[in-house]
């Protein structure tokens, strides 16, 4: 695990304050056990359409898991179930060892969720606004995050003044600002062009590893799944079950630009594509 910088360590006090206010149960997420267990999850839309059928996943602390599958197989629904925004029709979600020092769970949505009337820095500090924390520590933490993705000069800008890539960066920062145990990414980069997407993959991967955040990424893009993940799961057509689970062996420090020339990357891509093709044809 990469150690947090001085400023980020300082910001841990901010998280701690906010967490105590929210009454998050104390715990320890560093014992190697799974962080979240999905046990036999099933979901039926409106009592009629079976979207998800019996999915079980153990999410390990610090890992990034990608979920890939055909359209309509319930990937986004699965993410919302993990977030607690939806209740599964069947099965249970168990969250283990969520410590009190950090926020539980954040999400980066496919849609633009920046508040257009707030500046970039105020959007990034949204968690603190909602939890009544403010002051120098919050400001310093937000400045540090903006610096990590080279957005310092845009701190006082409004969302409409940013490019699509910048807005996505701010959305990611807003979600990771409270240094959540769990970050859920719902096709967050699908609307971006390839060069911007690879640049954001680099930053996003760096942030996840540096801040030790466990993440689940839902995506249609196999290259994105391989680039960002430690593990990729492929879901079947609905009702979805897991048809393939593949570890990604590139480690925590990887160069997103060089990765795509890597023969191993291309082989993984081919394996995933063949499996996915079975589900979409």
């Amino acid at each position, binding site marked *: 695990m990469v150690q947090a910088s001085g400023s980020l360590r300082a910001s841990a006090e901010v998280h701690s304050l*906010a967490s105590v206010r*929210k009454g998050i149960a104390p715990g320890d997420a560093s014992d190697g056990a799974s962080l979240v267990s999905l046990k036999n999850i099933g979901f039926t839309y409106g009592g009629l359409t079976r979207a998800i059928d019996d999915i079980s996943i153990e999410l390990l602390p610090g890992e990034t898991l990608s979920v890939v599958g055909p359209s309509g197989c319930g990937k986004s629904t699965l993410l*919302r179930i993990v*977030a607690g*925004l939806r209740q599964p029709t069947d099965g249970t979600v168990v969250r283990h060892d969520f410590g009190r020092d950090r*926020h539980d*769970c*954040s*999400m980066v*949505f*496919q*849609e633009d*969720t920046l*508040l*257009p*009337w707030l500046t970039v820095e105020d959007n990034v500090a*949204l*968690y603190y*606004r*909602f*939890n009544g924390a403010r002051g120098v520590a919050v400001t310093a933490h937000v400045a540090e995050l903006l610096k990590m993705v080279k957005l310092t000069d845009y701190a006082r800008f*409004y*969302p*409409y*003044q940013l490019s699509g890539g910048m807005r996505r960066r701010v959305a990611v920062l*807003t*979600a990771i600002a*409270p240094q959540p145990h769990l970050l859920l990414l719902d096709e967050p980069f699908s609307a971006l062009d390839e060069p911007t997407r690879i640049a954001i993959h680099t930053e996003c991967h760096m942030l996840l590893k540096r801040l030790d955040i466990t993440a689940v990424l839902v995506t249609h893009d196999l290259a994105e799944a391989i680039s960002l993940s430690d593990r990729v799961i492929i879901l079947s057509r609905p009702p979805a079950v897991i048809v393939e689970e593949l570890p990604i062996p590139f480690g925590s420090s990887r160069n997103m630009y060089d990765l795509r020339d890597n023969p191993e990357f291309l082989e993984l891509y081919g394996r995933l594509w063949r499996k996915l093709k079975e589900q979409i044809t």
Partner: protein
Amino acid sequence: MRTGGQSLGQLSRPDRGVGDAIPWPVLRFALQLLLATVVLLGWEYLPRIEVISSNIRFLDPFFISSPSAISRSLIGLLTGDNDNKITLWPYLWVTLSATILGSSIGLALGALCGLIFSNNQKLSEVVRPFLILANSVPRVAIIPIFVVMLGPTVAASVVSVIAVVFFLGFFNAFEGGISIKESLVENAKLLGAGPIDIMRSIRLPMVLTWTFAAVPNAISFGLIVAVTTELLAGIPGIGSLILTATANIQVALTFALIVALSVVGLVLYWGAVALKSRLIHWKN
């Protein structure tokens, strides 16, 4: 396609017309000035040609006066130097105060109701048909009711303006409220926002944004309704001055009042646009 005798440099530039020599904003202003001059000169001199004015009632100076007579009448209105010994200002104050007060109250009430109904789907489903029905009632038809209730007073003007502007504010605010994406609220919830945070940080700003966007239209409608109420009820505003001038067949004075009203409308509109831009400066 390249043609004989032309260089590539020439081909890469579009053909330059005469208008390209003058910057478009300057040319546009010159054309607008020319158009206004032609209309005013035509209005001034065409009715002086006997054969035209006697055959075309629309160009009879008895009915349409002339720009020179109207400007004299307007100056007289502004300075009080006229046969009726009246100045525009007290009448203008009545019309303006009814417009601004009525529009502000109407928008505020509309925004409040829009916020409440957009936040409660069942409530909005219950009352929506009634609101659409109420909005479809021609407002001019109910102005006399307000006049009977409140008398020919400024209060009747204000209430009439509120009755019109309320719906403008309400429907804008309501649309703003229901346009809030679910993901915006879900994101806030995951970041720890409670119902009050969501109302204060998401719903209220969104509803106000849409309401502020309606300010220029609200002011324009407000002015129309205020003048209409004065015309119908004889409330001492610009509307009643127009009524008096028309009754006395003072065509130049009537036109002078219309010009004054147009200028006031334009200034109010510009003011409202500036206010809107300031209030929602973050909206491109």
